[in-house]
């Protein structure tokens, strides 16, 4: 469903909605996977991101997202300088993630580490600032950043979805969509839960307290 505010927007730092605003949103999502500014990051650019990214500020935009700047934040222009000043060892590499069209031309793999956490995501910028995260830690997912989202990995036990839904509903959070994927039967289940309201920090704590939840993260809405 196309919204007027998608057309008259986003408000963003130029020059390209796909190479700059979308790239920044991908950085913001990677940041949320480690719940803060990553202490180290490997940013592997694919396709058009690798070829024309520098001229479009894609490198600055992704780093800006990792630093927590949103697409309309003028600090994006100076994100690489800020990164160096903070002594953050973020590295860029050019790569081929796979053949097109299976892999979108504006794709990136971002590996982030902070404290004891380390996560890898693959995402693409689809145009007009829209994005899609297609993989987190090797699990196939679909996160577009247009809703607040909870991602979690749990042991594949009966009733897990009901327990999780219960915790969310107790907090007054309405589930918009829920997708579950697993690598094999009885293996860990990867859940992507898009919700209408931003879940409170206590929800994350309650989810993590479940003995069969290995980890869970809240990914804040980055679009709209």
């Amino acid at each position: 469903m196309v919204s007027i505010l998608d057309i008259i927007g986003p408000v963003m730092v130029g020059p390209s909605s796909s190479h700059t605003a979308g790239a920044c949103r991908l950085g913001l999502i990677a940041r949320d996977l480690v719940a803060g500014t990553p202490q180290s990051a490997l940013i592997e650019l694919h396709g058009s991101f690798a070829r024309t990214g520098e001229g479009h500020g894609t490198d600055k935009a992704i780093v800006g997202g990792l630093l927590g700047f949103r697409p309309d934040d003028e600090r994006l222009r100076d994100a690489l300088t800020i990164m160096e000043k903070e002594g953050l060892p973020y590295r860029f590499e050019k790569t081929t993630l796979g053949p097109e069209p299976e892999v979108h031309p504006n794709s990136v793999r971002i590996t982030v580490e902070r404290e004891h956490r380390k996560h890898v995501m693959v995402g693409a910028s689809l145009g007009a600032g829209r994005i899609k995260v297609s993989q987190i830690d090797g699990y196939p997912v679909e996160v577009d950043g247009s809703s607040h989202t909870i991602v979690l990995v749990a042991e594949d036990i009966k009733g897990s979805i009901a327990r999780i839904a219960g915790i969310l509903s107790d907090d007054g959070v309405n589930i918009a969509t829920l997708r579950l994927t697993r690598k094999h039967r009885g293996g860990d289940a990867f859940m992507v839960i898009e919700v209408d309201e931003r879940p409170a920090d206590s929800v994350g704590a309650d989810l993590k307290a479940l003995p069969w939840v290995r980890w869970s993260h809240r990914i804040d809405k980055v679009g709209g």
Partner: protein
Amino acid sequence: MYTALHDAIRDAEARGVTLATVALEIESRDQGRSVEDIRSALGRALAVMRHAVEQGLTGDLRSASGLVGGDAAKLRTGPAGPLAGTVFRDVLMRALAVQEVNAAMGVIVAAPTAGGAGVLPAVLLGIAQKEKVDDTRLVDALATAGLIGAVVAHRASLSGAEGGCQAETGAAAGMAAGAATEMLGGSPAQVGHAVALAQQGTLGLVCDPLGGLVELPCVFRNATGAAIALAAVEMAMAGVEFAIPADEVIDTMGEIGREMDVRYRETAGGGLAATPTGRRLAKDRLTQIKRA
């Protein structure tokens, strides 16, 4: 949101209201937000558009590659041409200004995209200044532009990588022409003609940026796109009708985009990007960016 301008025009005319009114009502229902809330979001976009115009007119912005910048200021202070002192020159100046800000990593409103962000603010703010249009009507105009853009997104494309520049500055010209026509008191049917007149004038326009950068010719395509929008507004307000309905012109844009060779869809493989000078400039400038 509507997927055909025809339906929106029919509903607005049946109720004797503007396209902005019907668009805001549908948006409110689709998004579960109040009309007031949507209007304030559009008001914030308007403020960013104004700021970008002002920033671009200072003339001291340069893009990452140095390929563009400083031309908006030339239209403000440079020698007079046949359009000096008219809204036309003012609109060209504003379109260049916004797009120069965009190329310099300044803050703009992607409307519909960053690459086509100069057209809509240039046409609306240029006309608004001359005709003393207040912000309420400007916000209405943005809603009408959003409706037109949503129809283009649904029926064709708003991405240069998918449909060439006709899908970016072309779509922006259609949005600006329709929105300005309504802002000046044109009927919903006249808005439809304005959209068709503007979009037909940009059919087939390729996306051929040097080095793949949103700079050259993008900055100037915004100015010429705004010029086409103004021409469409002038004709539509005078009662000129375009025989092919806007929806069908938009469908045609989509069809041409799908048939367009990949060289002409933002890949810098053809068009101006592939000229001897285009290739040389792109190579020099990309080297410069890497050194910086």
